[in-house]
């Protein structure tokens, strides 16, 4: 059963809140690094596009209600150099994503990491204030 967790976690890491690893835009203008979300669900659509990749995920909450989330990842260039291919995460794949929720309150998050059922942890290539992908993958699967 898929779970939907939104945890308002106060993170001590605040080096520079506007840092975006691929620097297309200010992170803090759009996302809140204090609102960490863990999304567990099934990929419904992938956009391998600039300036950001998007992964859409159906997430089912404890009451059985399904919500579709948009998750922003890094630019294809950053992901490709980190070993991703456009098919690394496909429609139908189950995934656990840790990220930061959008400030506008919509079902939008900026990914920190992607964990796949086979144990692979994929670098998100995007906003950095909440730690590195490996750490967040480990936290998500704990």
């Amino acid at each position, binding site marked *: 059963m898929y779970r939907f967790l939104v945890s308002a976690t106060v993170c001590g890491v605040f080096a520079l809140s506007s840092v975006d690893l691929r620097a297309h835009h*200010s992170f803090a203008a759009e996302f809140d690094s204090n609102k960490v979300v863990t999304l567990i669900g099934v990929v419904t659509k992938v956009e391998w596009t*600039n300036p950001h990749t998007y992964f859409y995920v159906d997430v089912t909450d404890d009451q059985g209600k399904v919500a579709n989330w948009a998750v922003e990842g890094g630019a294809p260039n950053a992901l490709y150099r980190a070993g991703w291919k456009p098919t690394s995460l496909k429609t139908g794949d189950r995934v656990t994503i840790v990220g930061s929720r959008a400030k506008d309150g919509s079902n939008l998050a900026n990914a920190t990491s992607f964990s796949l059922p086979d144990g692979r942890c994929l670098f998100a290539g995007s906003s950095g204030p909440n730690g590195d992908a490996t750490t967040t993958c480990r936290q998500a699967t704990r």
Partner: protein
Amino acid sequence: MIPSTRAALRSLRAGERARRRVSVFGALGLAVMSWPAVAQWQGLPTPGLPRKADGTFDASAAAPRAADGKPDLSGIWMAPRIRVDLAQGLKKGETVPFTPEGKQIFDERRATNSKDDPGARCLPTGIPVRATLQTPFKILQTPGVTAILYESRTQFRQILTDGRSLPKEVDWPAWQGFSVGRWDGDTFVVETAGFNGKVWLDQVGTPASDAFRLTERFHRRDFGHMDVEMIIDDRKMYTRPWSTFAELLFQPDTELLEYICEENERDSARMVGK
């Protein structure tokens, strides 16, 4: 692909016309069939680089020289870590010498978390921050012009080295201005003027007006390392010229990739600021 192409070339030398056609078409067919295997655009060894005994890139080898004896800056370069704030490249103890107007603009941009950054709308980024965004760019040094191809946003610059000076008056203010270059010993000095006053120098909002003039001093320490000093001169925004410094690392065995920023830009409409 390579062995089959070589085979085709051998057969061409061998003579017979019909056999020649078969071999060439065979080679082409094999080349097409094997294209996905060779289409990997990363990790192919860059030819002509100094290598250690184990085949890895020797970054500490001497910087290469161009035919005119000057250092050749050509190649792909990138900052070792991301910096979105030029103040991070100040010398210790230095601060950005804002004028009151410059400080007001900067503070307004910080107060809204840079939500109005033109770069977030896929417009050009400031030239100084391109050296520190940790996105690769390629320098092509040729007689008369040195070009810089920036992967991020597919931007390019031409630095003319044909001996011309910057114009006294600029009749077309531009996002990137107009650049000329010259050598000061082994340091490549680029002067740029003619900016339009719209560009942000970095992502935190360090401002530039139409009075902005930029001097970049590139010094290739060795094959793998380059230092850049960027001198920012803008009497409207700053009380005096000031310098920010960056280090660049040569990027072996990679190539620039496509980056069409406008393809799916949706952040700007959702940037609420605070």
